[in-house]
């Protein structure tokens, strides 16, 4: 199975969002910034000391916490 969450995706890699599992409220929040199933994202950076993860989707760069990142499930694009 090549499904993984945003934490395990490596910096610089691209992946397609398969599923959000962050609870209704957070899912909605993520969706409103265009993080939703079907969208392709790129992981730009991971900040140390449990810092945020930086991704880009279309023309938007987003910084988000690890708890959220854990709940974003992806399929790697090769």
């Amino acid at each position, binding site marked *: 199975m090549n499904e993984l969450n945003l934490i395990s995706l490596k910096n610089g890699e691209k992946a397609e969002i398969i599923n959000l599992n962050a609870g209704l*409220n957070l899912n*909605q*929040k*993520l*969706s*409103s*910034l*265009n993080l*939703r199933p079907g969208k392709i994202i790129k992981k*730009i*950076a*991971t*900040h*140390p*000391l*449990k*810092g*945020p993860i*930086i991704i880009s989707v*279309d*023309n*938007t*760069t*987003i*910084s*988000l*916490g*690890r*708890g*959220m990142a854990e709940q974003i499930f992806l399929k790697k694009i090769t």
Partner: protein
Amino acid sequence: MKILLIGNQNVGKSSIFYRLTGVHVVISNYPGSTVEYKEGTAKIGNKEAQIVDVPGMYSLEATSKAENVAIEMLNLNHSDLIINVVDATNLERNLNLTLQLLEKNVPVIVALNFGDEALHKGIVIDLKKLSEILAVPVISTVAATGEGIKDLVNNIPKAKAHRLQYSESERWAKVGKIIKQVQTITGKKHSFFEKIQDLSIKPLTGIPIAFLVMLSTFSLVRFIGESLIAYVFEPFFNLLLPLYTKISAALSDQHLIHDIIIGKLVNGEIDFVQSMGLLTTGLFVPFAMVLPYVFAFYLALGILEDSGYLPRLATLVDNLMHKIGMHGLAIVPMLLGLGCNVPAAMSTRILESKRQRFIAGTVMAIAVPCSAQLAMIFGLIGSDIKAMTIFFSTLFIVAVGLGFILNKIMKGKTPETFLEIPPYRLPRLKNLAKKMSMKIRGFLTEAVPYVLLGVLFVNILFVTGAVEFIGNIFAPVIVNILGLPKEAVASLIVGFLRKDVAVGMLLPLDLSIKQLIVAGVVLTMYFPCIATFMVLFKELGIRLMFLSILIMISSTLIVGGILNLIL
């Protein structure tokens, strides 16, 4: 007629608002720079319309207090029309909100903003088709230059109300369909800004860049501030000196009036800082000591705000900020606080939870000195690098320590960061100049009268013997714990009104460097000035404000006491 400006964060609503109404509002390049709705009027056709700049939102479901304000506005007030501001570089995400607005049965017109940037990025949008599909007018605008605003106004009568009904997934499906029909993306060129964009947010390169940015900001502020003082304002006041000396001589047998107007002579001469007269200290402190730094600070902050650097800084410090009960974005109130604590207290609203707003507000009010106070501190101990280092590191340790403790003992957790990082934009000179002139006008109309009032108040305190009286009451604390002379109480009293005047009042006390450091730290921490207090009170409510004050006073005594012991 009431018109609401609605759109995602950082899409240029405030710019359009300014273009429509001519009302000056703060325009910056970071999400959430508008935390309060602003109103103005504009002529639409031949009728006057009320325009409301609503804080940005991504969806009609609120996830923060600022968003809540926006949504409440939308439901509570009958609005006649919505101008939906849409970021052309992020059409897909923005259209989701557009479709939500089209469910509300209020006439909508779309302003497609940042058309120029979209073109740069190789994004072409078919306006006509988009307008056909949405069945509302779509007007291309570049709010920063004013392009398309006339067109927007002319098309307002054509705005149409709809009552679409979609579930969330249906809505996104519809958005997807629209995008396919109206948007074509050609080869993307990487601009210079896009290249440094990534470098400044990756930890390995971003952290050194952040240090560089902060260091150069700080140096710029000091350089501009000091130059203005040395080459413009001090020479100007020296020109006034002969006139003042004449006035002083003329009033020499009217002691009370002389003291109030010119103040006390120091060694037989007028001393602009120490004399404490309305014409001397009352004007010298705000104009020749504080204003230069206010100018320099807001210039630097304006560049940081407009370039889009702040959200990157917020991301870089996010992990550390979480350890002290806030997330990265709380760096914004801390930085704003270095200018003036009042807007800083207001900006805590960009933080989602009450707990975070309390921690940020309290830490800011205690440990962040405003530019007016800093300017005076620079004047007092600026040449002593060791003293300055102790002063700033003490406040830094207080901020971190206090945040750490509050984070440990307060119930609840810090919400995670979820922040859009805007693209870098070149600050526009016009916008920068406008922001600066707003700040400086604010300083002249709000701060200067208070400084004069403060100086008058000092005279009253001394003439009536109130300083002596209150000084005696607090002497045990001030003398024994803080190691300051009891006359310093006058400075602490005036500090409620103006911290810059309060710092200036330390000069005639002939304090040692150690005492100056203690007094500077104490004046920063013990209580916010009255204007900040009012805002904090409004934001926190009575219970939390009381708690905040308790923390202020107790931490001041502890930190002041320790400094007194170890220095």
